[in-house]
């Protein structure tokens, strides 16, 4: 035990004042809030409205809005379908598994474009999806009113998320920098069969299939004139979504670092 210090407790008997001080304090507050209490009359006054904040915080001298800045708020998502590249990163990064990739109009019928559909019944508004979005097309807005009467209405299809985007609400501006030493996607050349699946499905089209000649014949023999293709990944465009790894039929792509 450390050394006890002397008690700094104030004397607890003030028989003369008794309860006068608390009464006076309450009365002081009564006078202060007689005409304008600190409450925000919610549906009519909104904290995210900067004009209201200015009026109340500055003009009325009320504590409301001392710390309020709404730019970083994590509310309902806004999705710009046009720039979405269907990389799946938002769905991968969701801890609650509330994001589904669903087909949207556009894209060729064989490989339809997929965009996130968010179930707000499960969403915890952690913002990992918008952090993970490499194109900045899935962002969180300041909209927080979500009451619905049907459970099915909680699921926001990409089109509904696009409607939120079109409202041009203030959006969370934060973009995370990628770490310098993140893994790259590497190729195991002998296993590759050149099937083109990775290049076809790559959302950023950073994989190009380059022609190579597979030295399958022994030296001296006549080389087979068959042209093999091998993926070459443009690292600066790659968003590390791992789609190529998951579609590779031979598991010849993998994560790693090139030293």
């Amino acid at each position, binding site marked *: 035990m450390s050394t006890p210090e002397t008690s700094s407790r104030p004397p607890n008997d003030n028989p003369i004042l008794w*309860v006068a001080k608390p*009464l006076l*304090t309450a009365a002081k507050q*009564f006078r*202060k*809030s*007689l005409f304008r209490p*600190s*409450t925000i009359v919610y549906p009519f006054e909104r904290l995210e409205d900067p004009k209201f904040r200015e009026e109340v915080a500055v003009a009325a001298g009320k504590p409301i809005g001392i710390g309020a800045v709404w730019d970083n708020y994590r509310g309902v998502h806004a999705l710009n379908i046009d720039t979405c590249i269907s990389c799946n990163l938002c769905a991968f990064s969701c801890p609650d598994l509330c994001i589904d990739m669903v087909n949207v109009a556009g894209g060729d019928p064989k490989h339809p474009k997929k965009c996130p559909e968010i179930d707000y019944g499960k969403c915890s508004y952690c913002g990992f999806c918008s952090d993970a979005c490499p194109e900045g097309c899935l962002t969180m807005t300041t909209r927080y009113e979500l009451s619905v009467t049907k459970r099915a209405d909680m699921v926001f299809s990409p089109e509904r998320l696009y409607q939120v985007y079109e409202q041009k609400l203030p959006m969370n501006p934060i973009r995370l920098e990628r770490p310098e030493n993140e893994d790259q996607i590497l190729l195991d050349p002998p296993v590759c069969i050149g099937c083109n699946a990775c290049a076809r499905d790559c959302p950023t089209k950073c994989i190009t299939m380059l022609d190579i000649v597979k030295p399958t014949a022994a030296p001296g023999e006549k080389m087979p004139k068959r042209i093999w293709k091998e993926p070459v990944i443009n690292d600066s465009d790659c968003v590390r979504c791992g789609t190529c790894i998951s579609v590779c039929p031979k598991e010849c792509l993998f994560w790693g670092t090139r030293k």
Partner: protein
Amino acid sequence: MLSLYSVAYDLISIPLTAIAAHLPAPLSAWLVNTTLLNVLGALVFCAILLGASMINTIMLIWFERKMLGRFMDRRGAMHVGFAGLLQNFADGLKLFRKNTRRPKDADFVGFYAAPTAYMVSSLVMFAILPVSTGWSAGALPLSLLLALVVFSFAPLFIFLSAWSSANKYSLLGGMRSAAQMIAYEVPILLAVVAVVVLSGSFDLTTIVYEQQNYWFWAPLFLALIVFVAGMLAEMERIPFDLPEAEAELVEGWNTEFGGMLFAFFMLADYVRALVGCFLIVLLFLGGWTMPGWVPASATSFPLAGIFWFMLKTYLVFGVFIWIRASLPRVRTDQLLRVGWMRMVPLSLLSIVLAVAVVLTKCLPVIGCVPGIGGG
């Protein structure tokens, strides 16, 4: 002089006489018969009284909600009606529509009878207390005693409701309530004795007339303190709201009551609060009379007595709200200790003071201090 009964009587007799004029003689004679008119008049009188007292009670709740809100830096009810004036009517309607459920082990008679009896016994008070000259049921020579007797029925019904709802919280709350009310009946009665000594009457109207010149709060300041503290305990308001101390006893003795039964308790509590404020105004603050320095025009307009009386009542209740907003709740043993060991001696002292004031005839001396109601 305009009196409530005459108003009620006119309300029923004028239309009846008008109708009787168009009716054949035997029927009209039966209709405008004095007994029938008196009975109907009494009924209308009761209806007016009930309506007025209920509206006042509900306004009192609104007043408390708004004022407490301001103490707490918030707004209180504000959406139903102008500034939330109709909120409590809406709440009452909601409670009226709700199911009342009786716990399995609860006693049928006690569970339903106790809230009703509590409500009725509280409402009866309005017939006893004069609001202004002529605005009471009748001239009762012992109206003060009757009022206090009816007022002290409550612990019985509270304990009955607590006991019959077969709940441990209710039981604890009921016992606390009974102990507290009985403990504070004594100082209240003793404080009233001081008033009686000074005024020489048990009739509330007479007591108010005695205060026409000097309000009793200045000479009987000790009695006023005792009476206010006792009333706080009787009304079960913070700091003395232990019977329904929600932190430990959920809702105390009305834990098991819901819907209209709860509304009865809630309303009756505020009826009692209103009655308590009435009593304070009647006994210590001069009732409907105003001090002499008030210009005559302020006291002579129609219903001026009722206006000033209600204004004083609401101000007194405002003080209660102020106390509620700023003080914590005390503990049962501390409450009882204060009741028996501080309030009773203080009230005895106040009787002695009252006797001394009467004997030395110095009431005008104290009462003449400017601004405290000297006439």
